């Protein structure tokens, strides 16, 4: 019935955003323990054993990803993905703003574990206050001797570069992020080779999400067995869920893996606003498939959400009430993907353009009979044929909406108008 707070446990403690306040909550103890008591290989094993899966979207095992680095090849790089631009997601922002040192400590633990002496944080250009918070935190950590040469006498050298993006959603995709960090246009690269083999400057590289590394100090302090007792069989620990839309109390909530979606939306979020009925909700982020009230008892966990027909993605939870026009929501998302398509491959660049056109004409009452099927056909031609997942993912939400709300698409066409227009929220 409540949040399970691990990462956000001390949020609100005085001065948490600064070193003294963070150390008062036990900050940097885990890093010191790692440096003094653990070998890098033992740390990798520890993270593997904890069952931690990446929080950036794909949910890949963190320890497993680290162990893909080829033996004996140096330098190796660690890049923290703070590009958070997935529509509906605002958790990394919260973590960076409220406790930047937790992220820095996690980064330093990861760097030590994989044998990296130069790490990067790639932060989206729009996150200026968070950039400042990190810049402070890094300067303080440097002054305290946590970053630098021979850290605390351990022989470990580490430096961190904070790199500011400049407005491009695709740079959150790990290969595009690396291309961007090298100073090119942020276009994705073909995988394989995966970054672990050939990443930044052609060297072995690990890309990890902000929330993923922020979890590491807790695993090191409390042990992998403790972490593995929290959550479900295949989803360990907690996750921050970014709840938005038609809910009474939007915001970030840290939930144990597997807690029912109902708890998040109703117990914590206070239910649907304006005493209206829940129409649908969308976990994961812009690309993910829509779910219905019948899915409220599904657990907040990678596998459970996937089994229900959607994906946990980057932890968004967008709530939609009965007045929501699904065609309009599809149009906005696909327009977003069209806007953000890097233009490298044709299915994504042209496909998102045509899908936006058709969705716009339906929404404006100029749709044609068969447009829903046309959209499905376009979707089938984009998904699986795009160079990177951006194109594929642009089709998932609209296709799921056609599956569950086909009537609505057809009503727009037969009535030559959007049946929801008049009911839209008016604020002004």
């Amino acid at each position, binding site marked *: 019935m409540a*949040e399970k707070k691990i990462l956000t446990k001390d*949020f609100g*403690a*005085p*001065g948490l*955003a600064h070193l*003294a*306040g963070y150390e*008062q909550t036990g900050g940097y103890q885990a890093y010191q323990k790692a440096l003094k008591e653990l070998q890098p290989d033992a740390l990798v094993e520890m993270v593997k054993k904890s069952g931690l899966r990446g929080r950036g979207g794909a949910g890949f095992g963190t320890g497993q990803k680290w162990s893909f680095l080829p033996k004996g090849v140096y330098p190796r790089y660690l890049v923290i993905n703070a590009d958070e631009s997935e529509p*509906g*997601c605002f958790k990394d*922002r*919260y973590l960076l703003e*409220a406790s930047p040192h937790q992220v820095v400590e996690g980064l330093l633990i990861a760097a030590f574990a994989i044998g990296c002496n*130069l790490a990067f944080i790639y932060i*989206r250009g729009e*996150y*200026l*206050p968070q950039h*400042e918070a990190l*810049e*402070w935190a890094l*300067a303080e950590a440097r*002054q305290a001797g946590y970053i630098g040469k021979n850290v605390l006498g351990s022989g470990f050298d580490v430096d961190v*570069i904070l790199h*500011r*993006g*400049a*407005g*491009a959603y695709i740079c959150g995709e790990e290969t595009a992020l690396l291309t961007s960090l090298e*100073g*090119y*246009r*942020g276009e994705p690269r073909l995988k394989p080779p995966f970054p672990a083999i050939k990443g930044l400057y052609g060297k072995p590289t690990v890309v990890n999400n902000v929330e993923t590394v922020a979890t590491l100090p807790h695993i090191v302090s409390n042990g992998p067995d403790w972490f593995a007792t929290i959550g479900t069989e295949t989803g360990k620990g907690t996750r921050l869920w970014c*709840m*938005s*839309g*038609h809910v009474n*109390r*939007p*915001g*970030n909530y840290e939930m144990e893996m597997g807690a029912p979606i109902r708890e998040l939306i109703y117990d*914590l979020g206070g239910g649907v*606003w*304006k*005493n209206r009925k829940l129409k649908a909700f969308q976990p994961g982020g*812009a690309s993910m498939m829509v779910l219905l009230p019948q899915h409220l008892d599904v657990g907040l966990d990678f596998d459970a959400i996937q089994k229900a027909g959607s994906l946990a993605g980057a932890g*968004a939870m*967008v709530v939609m009430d009965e007045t*929501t026009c699904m065609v309009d*929501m599809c149009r*906005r998302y696909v*327009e*977003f993907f069209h*806007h953000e398509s*890097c233009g490298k491959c044709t299915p994504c660049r042209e496909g998102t353009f045509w899908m936006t056109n058709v969705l716009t004409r339906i929404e404006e009452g100029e749709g044609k009979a068969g447009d829903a099927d046309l959209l499905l056909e376009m979707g089938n031609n984009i998904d699986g044929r795009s160079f990177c997942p951006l194109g594929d993912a642009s089709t998932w939400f609209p296709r799921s909406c056609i599956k569950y709300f086909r009537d609505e698409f057809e009503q727009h066409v037969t009535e030559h108008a959007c049946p929801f227009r008049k009911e839209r*929220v*008016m*604020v*002004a």
Partner: protein
Amino acid sequence: MSLSQATVEKIQDYARRYPSAQSAILPALWAVQHEVGYVTSDGMREVAQHLGLPASLVEATSSFYSMYLTRPEGRHDAVMCVNVACALRGAEELFAYCEQRLGIRDGQTTSDGAITLRSTIECLGACGGAPMMQIDHRFEEDLTPERVNAIFERLRTEPAPSPEPPRPAAVPPTPTPAAKAAPKRPAGGSRPREKKADT
């Protein structure tokens, strides 16, 4: 046009910090924008020269990213997100209100040069505080027409933000927990909070 000595030094410093000078393109372009207000082709040529790279490469990189401005704009930047989570809470209607209030359309600047107004389909990471705006890249959330009025009023007279946000000193003062208490509303709308149901 020629960049100030301080900016040039900053660019050279970036070039030394990264394993490859090309990685310094983005931070160097930010430095140009901070000094000039936008990124001109002269600015790009100078960046190329200081990094020892072809100008065409700097231009190719620069044009990919939407945050580098190509022309002078108002003293203040007001950007409202109209992606799904924001649209669900009335962002589109509130944006129309902003246009009407300022007497300008999307992308235009008020005649006194104070405010450039924009809507964007890019989520700005404040979905929990929708409708929202970024004013000079700082978050304003849970907006209402009244709050928008107050913000615009303030911007009319406020000078442009310091071209570069205050940087921590090389050796930051040790902040006392009391003096450096956590921000009152960390992450604004991203923090769960009690809020009465809107009616």
